[in-house]
């Protein structure tokens, strides 16, 4: 696995945001966290339609794969936790390639995807495509979570709407 190639890709990530219609809120920086011996990660902040998200691409050394995390900061009241957890589960059971997690103590919901380098080589074009798809998908799906948390819409109604839309989304991606 070429760590330098991954690092170069992560550093230029901002150019792809702007091409995809997202604006930059904060310049990309290398993350310095306690577990840096396990992974290489960068952090950017991007924005669309007033919603800011952290974008964290990471190379996990042990598994020789890359992860991209799109992190939305949102306050979920303890009384809403069950509902949000339930809805995230509905989304996760309907999608193969992306999934959501909630970090309860940090008031964060996060959409993730993994990218497996092909025969240990990073394919630049396919990684960019993965990132663009994830950004689109994360912003689109986060809107449901926002409606649940901020507007108090019902899990049942949102789930039904999401499942209808996600079928269309899958078809679109497949074509």
């Amino acid at each position, binding site marked *: 696995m070429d760590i330098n190639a991954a690092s170069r890709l992560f550093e230029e990530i901002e150019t792809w945001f702007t091409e995809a219609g997202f604006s930059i809120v904060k310049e990309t920086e290398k993350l310095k966290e306690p577990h840096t011996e396990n992974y290489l990660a960068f952090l950017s902040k991007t924005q669309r339609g007033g919603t800011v998200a952290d974008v964290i691409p*990471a190379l996990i050394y042990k598994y020789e794969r890359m992860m991209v995390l799109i992190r939305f900061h949102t306050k979920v009241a303890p009384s809403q936790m069950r509902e949000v*957890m*339930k809805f*995230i589960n509905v989304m*996760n*059971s309907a999608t193969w390639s992306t*999934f959501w997690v909630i*970090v309860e103590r940090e008031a964060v919901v996060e959409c993730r995807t993994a990218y497996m380098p092909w025969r240990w080589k990073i*394919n630049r074009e396919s990684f960019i*495509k993965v990132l663009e798809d994830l950004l689109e998908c994360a912003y689109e799906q986060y809107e449901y979570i926002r409606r649940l948390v901020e507007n108090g819409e019902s899990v049942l109604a949102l789930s039904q709407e999401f499942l209808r839309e996600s079928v269309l989304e899958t078809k679109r991606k497949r074509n």
Partner: protein
Amino acid sequence: MKNKREKKIRFETTEGILDVVKLCFKELDLQIIEQGAGKDASYVRGCLDLCDFSARVHVEIVNGNMTPLLNFRMTSSWEENGENEFHAQRVINYLNRYLMSIAHFAMDSDNTDIQLLASVSLQGDRVKGKDVMDPMMDLMIGGVAAFMLLRQMLFSDPDTEMYEFIKEIMRNTKC
């Protein structure tokens, strides 16, 4: 012997890739219960029966917009009594947070079965047997290990015991 076998399979076709998946099923003693082809995908379903764990495995090969996709789902039932559904969702969320994986867990909204889902992009000009076999084996073997620990976690205290399970899973799985 292996070369001869590979020559017979046309990996560039959906059916060819699915043939490799069926070889994986055979090597792991999975009984094929159904196979077929739809408009967008070809699929195979199998049944895994170990002495203390059983699961249904569904693999479909979809023609993605850039490369073929291998979608994987392993489903297993558990004894859910209606009271611990939220606890199970918390456990699943916790696992998904720490696995940094190509796969994620979710609970089936209809019947509370637990699923492990993953999507692998089969990149390159020409897909070879190894490109399909390696992720399939990781998902199958790692998936069973992760499922076994998940079952123990379902009956654990998420705030105190969870991290020990995560360490165990990270040591033993690559899915």
